[in-house]
């Protein structure tokens, strides 16, 4: 009996689904919006924006990490490197030109990355208006799951970080200090060190999933490369974040003073 009932019920559903959208009461009235076939509306385009801007960040982060390691060469080298960044390209273009261009590119990239993330987050929210009572994770990694909140933490951290070590506004060494002084004095406070280490951990997870996701989004992943790509993404994130963590930890343990 139960079987018959289920069958006859299914019969009526089959009729509903084969009808044109919007005709049958109670059924899916069709898409709530017109399909956007334009260039910028597509979710895949937004993903590509995230991937390309993400690559810009990763390239910048590599350069930034290498620059940070100059702290081990002492105050003079570190401060000179900071000056070099401002003098970059100087005989050709006026002082600060190259650095300003880099800053503008990064700002635009951050804006685009956040725009795409926010837009995709809204789409994802629309895509599951009612949640599951029970939902288990089968395959997702911690890194992939925390991309959105991780991103929010990172933007807050970046703002703090610029106020702290670039401008010196929230640094105990003050605004008129030299970069090396800000570095050493800032990380004397263990709370600041812990905050940096946590943010770096969040950055590591963000990069671990981001590198893999960007490759996939730009259409350069396949079954054969999938494993290697994921291993590379993890290794890259570990090396990069390890390089960054060396500095605050070295200050804490007195290797840099």
């Amino acid at each position, binding site marked *: 009996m139960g079987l018959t009932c289920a069958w006859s019920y299914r019969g009526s559903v089959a009729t509903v689904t084969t009808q044109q959208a919007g005709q049958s009461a109670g059924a899916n009235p069709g898409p709530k919006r017109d399909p956007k076939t334009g260039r910028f509306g*597509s979710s895949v385009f937004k993903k590509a924006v995230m991937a390309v801007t993400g690559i810009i960040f990763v390239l910048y982060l590599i350069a930034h990490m290498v620059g940070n390691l100059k702290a081990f060469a002492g105050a003079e080298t570190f401060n000179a490197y900071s000056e070099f960044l401002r003098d970059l390209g100087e005989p050709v273009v006026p002082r600060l030109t190259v650095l300003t261009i880099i800053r503008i590119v990064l700002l635009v990239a951050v804006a685009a990355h956040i725009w795409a993330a926010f837009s995709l987050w809204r789409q994802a929210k629309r895509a599951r208006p009612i949640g599951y009572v029970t939902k288990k994770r089968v395959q997702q990694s911690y890194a992939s799951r925390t991309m959105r909140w991780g991103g929010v933490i990172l933007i807050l951290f970046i703002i703090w970080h610029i106020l702290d070590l670039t401008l010196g506004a929230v640094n105990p060494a003050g605004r008129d200090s030299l970069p090396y002084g800000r570095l050493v004095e800032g990380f004397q406070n263990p709370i600041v060190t812990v905050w940096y280490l946590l943010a770096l951990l969040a950055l590591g997870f963000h990069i671990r999933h981001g590198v893999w996701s960007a490759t996939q989004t730009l259409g350069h992943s396949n079954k054969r490369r999938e494993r290697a790509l994921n291993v590379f993404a993890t290794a890259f994130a570990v090396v990069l974040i390890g390089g960054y963590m060396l500095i605050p930890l070295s200050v804490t343990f007195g290797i840099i003073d």
Partner: protein
Amino acid sequence: MKLTLRVWRQPSPQVKGKMANYHLTDVSPDMSFLEMLDVLNEQLILEGEDPVAFDHDCREGICGSCGLMINGIAHGPEQTTTCQLHMRSFSDGDTIDIEPWRSGGFPVVKDLVVDRSAFDRIISAGGFISAPTGTAPDAHASPVPKVDADAAFDAATCIGCGACVAACPNGSAMLFTAAKVTHLGLLPQGQPERDSRVVRMVAQQDAEDFGGCTNIGECSAVCPKGISMETISRLNHDLLGALRANAVPTS
């Protein structure tokens, strides 16, 4: 086997649904999951209650009609369709949560039945080829490289059950769309519409209130046909190629 079932009951799309508890005794471990639900429905009918509505058709794992969220996993603990899942995958005394697919694009019709016509509209947006009518051409008239034929066939095994959407934390239908785009885009017969197909199908999937893909991989892990994440990479590649080629459909 004795089981406790917690089933999503929702009489109609407009009414708010809730989980209801049912107790089943004498469930054979050799029953399929759907046969177990048949037993529940017989019991409900005898008690004068409304039987639980759920979708099913071939019960052979090839039609894509059935699909339930079982204990929080699309199609349950085995990577197969709900109809091919057997009660031996559970233990005596288990509590099993049964919910419908959840997505903005899959509104609940009744109980565990969702309307998946959004998939039909994604297909009609571009999941076809232009083929001359008349006598069928010789099978070897257009040669297809073996690798492409294999990859296209793997993608073509998609039965459109919707488990990818159900499992995706973003509620994205990208694995389904990608399987169709890959299947047709790899074959010579699919080339004329290759650019416009991917643009239109992605646009339709976005318009149907499905989410965007963040390459988490839950979809592929629950796909009864094991459609690979590679198809999504191909879709992305084709879409970006189409945008570069300025192949934006006018209508």
